[in-house]
């Protein structure tokens, strides 16, 4: 018997779909990946009945029936439908992997959590009926997450490395090193030393320090590095600029809430 190909689902909730396009942008490499798996769900390449239609028709699967070995999901659960798809996806999947900053950390849509979100929606819409405006929460608040591939957007090459490991049964964690590690290795100019607001020392690397390569500060789209000495960096930054400035920058990619502890201590 030939070994069966792993069944894969790639699904997006409300998002820019940039993480899915990051896969497409791998070109031939991505097509080769597709050959190694059986794609069960990927609405950018197939127009067959999928999870979205089944949910509309209330077709849920029995709880013990695994349909996908690996599912990858990007975006934020904003609509009720998003949430249903996410929960159903979890039930159907052996392993659920989240893609990107929105799914992992709330992303750009989470900025409204730090505002008066009723005011935020009223600026955009006159008629609020039927328009979901939940507090934005990371996907692991709703379902169990087995692995996170971070970034805004994800790095396609990193996806391939992780996905190829998954296919041979390895669940590999991303090396816990800060963005500065790669930045220094590549000898990019240190923006912190130039007194720019850069979060590199406390942010999970693996992005090849792509922003620093272009002289753009790290705003933390890959999330806080486990065990990072956040307090030290934030104190340093606070000496150079206003607290407001710092906090607003932390809001952009949804990491302010991850640092509540450190920021809160200061508020007392």
């Amino acid at each position: 018997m030939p070994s069966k190909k792993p069944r894969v689902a790639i699904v997006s909730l409300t998002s820019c779909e940039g993480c899915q396009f990051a896969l497409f942008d791998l070109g031939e490499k991505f097509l080769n990946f597709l050959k190694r798996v059986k794609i069960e769900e990927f609405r950018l390449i197939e127009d067959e009945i999928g999870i979205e239609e089944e949910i509309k028709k209330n077709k849920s699967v029995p709880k013990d029936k695994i349909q996908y070995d690996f599912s990858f999901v990007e975006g934020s659960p904003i609509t009720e439908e998003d949430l249903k798809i996410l929960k159903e996806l979890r039930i159907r999947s052996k392993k659920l992997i989240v893609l990107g900053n929105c799914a992992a950390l709330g992303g750009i849509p989470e900025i409204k959590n730090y505002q008066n979100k009723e005011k935020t929606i009223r600026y955009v819409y006159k008629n609020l009926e039927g328009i979901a405006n939940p507090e934005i929460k990371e996907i692991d608040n709703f379902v169990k997450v087995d692995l996170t591939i971070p970034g805004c957007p994800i790095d396609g090459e990193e996806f391939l490395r992780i996905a190829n490991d998954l296919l041979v049964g390895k669940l590999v964690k991303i090396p816990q090193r800060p963005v500065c590690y790669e930045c220094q290795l590549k000898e990019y100019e240190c923006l912190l030393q130039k007194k720019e607001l850069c979060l590199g020392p406390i942010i999970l690397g693996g992005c090849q320090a792509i922003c620093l390569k272009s002289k753009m500060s790290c705003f933390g789209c890959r999330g806080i590095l486990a065990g990072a000495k956040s307090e030290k960096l934030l104190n340093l930054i606070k000496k150079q600029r206003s607290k407001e400035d710092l906090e607003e920058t932390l809001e952009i990619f949804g990491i302010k809430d991850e640092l509540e502890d450190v920021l809160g201590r200061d508020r007392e």
Partner: protein
Amino acid sequence: MKIRIDHIAKIEGHAGFVASILDGNVRKAKIEIQEGAKLIEGILIGRRFWEAPIITARICGLCPVAHNLTALKALEAALGIKVSNQTIMLRKLMLAGQIIHSHSLHLFFLSLPDFFNLENDLKLIKKYPKETKAALRIRNFGTKIIKTIGGRIIHPITSEIGGFKKLPSKNELLNLIRNYEEVWDSALILSKLFKKIKCPKFERKTEYISLGSKKEYAFYDGAITSNQGLKISPEKFEQNIKEIQKPYQVVKEVDYSGKTFMVGALSRINNNYQFLNQEAKKIWEDFNQKIPVYNIFYNIFAQAIEIIHFIEESKKIIDRLSKMKLKDERKRIKIKTGRSTGATEAPRGTLYHFYSLDREGRILDCNIITPTAQFLTNLEEDLRAYLPNVLSLPSSERKRKIKAFIRAYDPCISCAVH
């Protein structure tokens, strides 16, 4: 009779379709948006001006360059900044790369299978290996441009208010056109494939709106023009637009003159085809269509022609840039109050960003009008006219035709909602 399509795959974002028909008359034909509201405009209020190009790029993973550049242009106008010619050339190159990138995905992977009755790209790839390679090569040309100039394919890094944080080296620029012959051959392979397609017959007159210019195929700059004689500044156009939001609708209807209108590749060709680059123009003329073309299926051909045009355009810009000595020409930013509109041609049509800033450079007001929001009512009108042609078909075949029709528009729901 009721027609319901729960979910339309192979478009950017999530939407369905419903229609009801009584005695052969279409009573309702509606695209049902299934995307959550990200509230980008609301989120931006009160924030620092320089965040807008970064945040709005995240509206769409398929045209982040367009959002980024449109925000930059609007903010620069508000702050009274005039960028250098070099900056404009680099931005045009980025935008050309984005259009090639987006069109080649839509054409080959999203829309083309409809014309061969294939429901899965994997079947398309198997059946057309040579053409798949060609499509990937073209995409690769586009993505490499965006990456080299913008620092990354999705969500640009280098572009900022006043100019560029980092400039490409001469070598990097020349690298982009090292395999130009191959890219060019690939474009011809694809255009041959598209010539084989039999375009469904369908016509409905409408207004085609796009940027227009007296000297070039406008995409980064220009006045708002149409096939019906419209000529107005982007600022005025944006101010005169009425955005109507009905209950339960996350996409606002865009009303300019009381009639629906179309934007995007077919609009640009209808308005500006005389400025197409040489080869693109020749191939377009081979289609032997009288301008303006009112058959929306030609939007697909228009995209194919634009791929060729923008490959030629990219080559021209790269040739010029690689002969220049690029230097840091960033303009200094002096924060002040101001308000302005910026417009560019995104892959799917004219994109408008408006910002008003307070004297600390915080955003007081902001409005984003996306191409899909502009053409959504035109699409629905078209569908009303198109549905009677497919009513006698078996249900699954009918749905397939409707989806193919919608996909020819290349809607981007993520943009439309934003």
